[in-house]
């Protein structure tokens, strides 16, 4: 069970049960849909961008504990950040998840996102942890706007 506890850390289970920023956002300037067909996870991500800052971010959807907790903690982590900072954070997070499973990740500079360090031992779950970030990425890259997704 030890490696299962690495994956399902208390913080992750808490966010799964009561996700942060789980709401609709009527004044969002961008919206993107994330979809993981393998497990049926669906995610709707709302972002309000002011200048080059993420002024507000929220999500809705259904998914496994990992994808829901990841979306929840992501929204906490990128709120108030500049687009470039969010981009950098995603890079670091991605490295955390895909590093070699036998090397313990240090999670430096990731703050609360470091709780996902156990995911690298479960390659089948990496996609769950990155779904929210992939969805955010389409917004950061300006590929999706409300008009084009709905």
């Amino acid at each position, binding site marked *: *069970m030890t490696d*299962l506890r690495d994956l399902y850390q208390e913080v992750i289970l808490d966010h799964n049960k009561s996700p942060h920023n789980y709401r609709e956002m009527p004044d969002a300037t961008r919206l993107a849909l994330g979809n993981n067909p393998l497990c049926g996870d669906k995610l709707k991500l709302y972002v309000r961008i002011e200048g080059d800052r993420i002024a507000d971010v929220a999500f809705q959807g259904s998914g496994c504990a990992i994808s829901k907790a990841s979306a929840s903690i992501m929204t906490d982590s990128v709120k108030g950040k500049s687009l470039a900072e969010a981009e950098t954070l995603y890079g670091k997070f991605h490295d955390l998840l895909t590093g070699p499973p036998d090397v313990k990740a240090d999670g430096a500079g990731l703050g609360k996102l470091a709780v996902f360090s156990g995911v690298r031992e479960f390659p089948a779950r990496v996609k769950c942890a990155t779904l929210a970030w992939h969805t955010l990425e389409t917004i950061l890259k300006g590929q999706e706007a409300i008009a084009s997704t709905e």
Partner: protein
Amino acid sequence: MSAVTKAAPEAHASAYDVERVRAEFPILSRSVYGKPLVYLDNANTTQKPRVVIDAVRRYYEEENANIHRGTHWLSEKATEAYEGGREKVARFLGATSPKEIVFTRGTTEAINLVAAGFAREYLQAGDEILITGLEHHSNIVPWQLACERTGAKLVVVPITDEGEVPVDEFEKRLTPRTKLAAVSHVSNALGTVNPVKTFIALAHARKVPVLVDGAQAAPHLPLDVVDLGCDFYAISGHKMYGPTGIGALYGTEAWLEKLPPYQGGGDMISSVTFEKTTYNVLPWKFEAGTANIAGGIGFGVAADWLSGVGLAAVAAHEHDLLVYGTRKLSAIPGLTIVGRAKEKAAVISFVLENVHPHDIGTILDREGIAIRTGHHCAQPVMDRFGLPATARASFGLYNTRAEVDALAAAVEKVREVFG
């Protein structure tokens, strides 16, 4: 079908020596994450008995050559073995002749073959293809493609809360415009056994041909395509303890003669000039290019082996696991079984309150238990129940009550992790 549920399970189960069957599967003695493998993903694919593995190896080691083309000894041997596989599959299904067995990559290709032929020769705008709400994507999408090409319409028989297809709902949707009905014999997502014989009789009364997707039926219940009366029956070798990449389409000789070829190439022709090509006779008209020879040989061996074990006994054994598993899992607080048809194969699809199926799958995996989680290539079934996914334990002839116990204990562990 009735053998699945009507046989006296306890009596059969005791006569059936599951340990002897298990001993024939090398993979079942391995462990996963230090735990004995409990393989409950049989609706996805089954494990292979030693005889099948040996037959495939023996072909490559002793008889490998291309078929139908060589004048040399090896080619004759290979052709004999491959065509022998076809005869075995024909016998397994109760077909009248091996001519009625077209080897395909699997059920998916078998259905595509019929759908493409129908689109080319028999469908027009306004025609209807009738399917059920239980179908696997492979018995939906080929018909959608055929409809797109021709302007025909896909009509779907809705399913009940139990996951059954009511006969009257099916009958109601047979209209003068219905050109073909395509129904699954057994649902992979819920385990429902459809009353296909009744469906076929109703359709035939209106001169509507019927294709049966038998991917999930062939490994689990006694079959006789002539008794069923179907026009087409599609199966996959890998779900019947045979190799991957091989399956079969059974079609009545009359229908196979009428359908146009599926792919063009070598082997499917009898003569080719730039002006005109004449097609080969059945069943080779539908088999273009070098076949999956090892697969055809292995498939035949698997079909014979399965018949040898005896499908009535297999059905009874699996029914015992279904009853036992349903009882064990139903006792777990917060667990709901999806699909409660009266006639059911040994498939238990379930959801757990406040836990996503994917998380169930991961935790079970670490206990050495392989199940499938997700939509099971049957998204419309999931939508019907308002679920993004389920966890699914599907049983095979080598599973045991002890493995059901292991499953139930592991699900309890999931509840522990998720508090």
